[in-house]
């Protein structure tokens, strides 16, 4: 909720800006809001979705990001030739629509059962889970799933306080390094460059319809997320990662 207010502040600043400092401040607040939301969503999804479809629901978030990129490319393309402030104000102001939808949706969303357990309110956790599964609070399935969440939480508590330093030690350190390396290599493929600077880059390279090229790259991104989401379950994580790397490797 708070994050959406921060985000809207950022969007307002960007919309009214006519010089770089104000625009950058707008980007800062919008980035702050988006950053918080994007960290929370997968967590919220995995705490509410039933186990058997959890992977797909979280995957839908990845898909939604690529769809957002595509929508942005389309809106930018539609307004690029306007010779007034609408050329950039319209694409920016469209974000109010997204923010409002999420803001009012959030009012209706339940708090996750896990969060209630964490706060020591098991009866509210049971109610939240029962609403999500459309069962009575004393249904065996609810009792069982709630028991699992509680057991998990108690197990985590029993491990005592873990410090951030523990992340770097021993086996865990190796796993952290693998994760970081993969993320770093993913950044080095340069895909973010294409989405952030692609349009200016194509333009300067002498491609006259740079906005169209950007729409195509985003559309390819959306389309390739579908086989990605399917194959990550069908083939497993490692084979898909190895297979996926052939393409940047080839180019």
């Amino acid at each position, binding site marked *: 909720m708070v994050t959406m207010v921060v985000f809207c502040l950022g969007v307002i600043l960007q919309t009214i800006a*006519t010089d*770089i400092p104000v625009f*950058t401040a707008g*980007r*800062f607040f*919008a*980035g*702050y809001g*988006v*950053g*918080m939301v*994007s*960290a*929370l969503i997968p*967590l919220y999804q995995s705490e*509410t*979705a*039933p186990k*058997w*479809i959890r992977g*797909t*629901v979280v995957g*839908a978030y*990845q898909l*939604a*990001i690529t*769809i*957002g*990129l*595509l*929508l*942005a*490319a389309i809106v*930018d*393309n539609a307004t*690029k030739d*306007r*010779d007034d402030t609408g*050329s*950039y104000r319209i*694409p*920016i102001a469209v*974000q109010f629509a*997204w923010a409002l939808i*999420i803001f009012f949706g959030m009012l209706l*969303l339940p708090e996750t059962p896990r969060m209630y357990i964490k706060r020591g309110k098991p009866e509210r956790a049971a109610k939240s889970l029962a609403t*999500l*599964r*459309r069962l009575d609070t004393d249904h065996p*399935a609810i009792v069982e799933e709630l028991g699992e969440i509680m057991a998990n939480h108690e197990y985590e508590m029993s491990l005592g306080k873990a410090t951030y330093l523990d992340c770097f030690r021993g086996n865990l350190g190796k796993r952290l390094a693998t994760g970081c390396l993969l993320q770093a290599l993913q950044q080095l493929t340069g895909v*973010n460059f294409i*989405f952030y*600077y*692609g*349009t*200016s880059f194509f333009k*300067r390279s002498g491609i006259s319809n740079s*906005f169209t090229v950007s729409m195509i790259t985003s559309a390819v991104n959306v389309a390739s997320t579908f086989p990605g989401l*399917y194959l990550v*379950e069908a083939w497993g994580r490692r084979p898909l990662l190895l297979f996926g790397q052939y393409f940047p490797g080839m180019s």
Partner: protein
Amino acid sequence: MPIRLTPPPGTPGAAWPAICVGLFVAFGGVLFGYDTGTIGGILAMPYWLKTFSTGYTDADGNPAITSSQSSMIVSILVSVIEAIETMTLP
């Protein structure tokens, strides 16, 4: 294991409320992607460059912004996101 779209047999209760909730919050991804994607195009818009240029011009004499200006506009978002994600993700 391929993606399942039906619950395993014998699963009690309804899955659709949780799935709908999950898909609705996934909409936040559209917000994230849109915010990322929109700036790329804006940086290339002739009118935006004309308005925001501080006097710098490109090789053809058109108004432009310097690369340090564009990287500040673009990545102030990224750096903030990344810092927050590392702090809040479990």
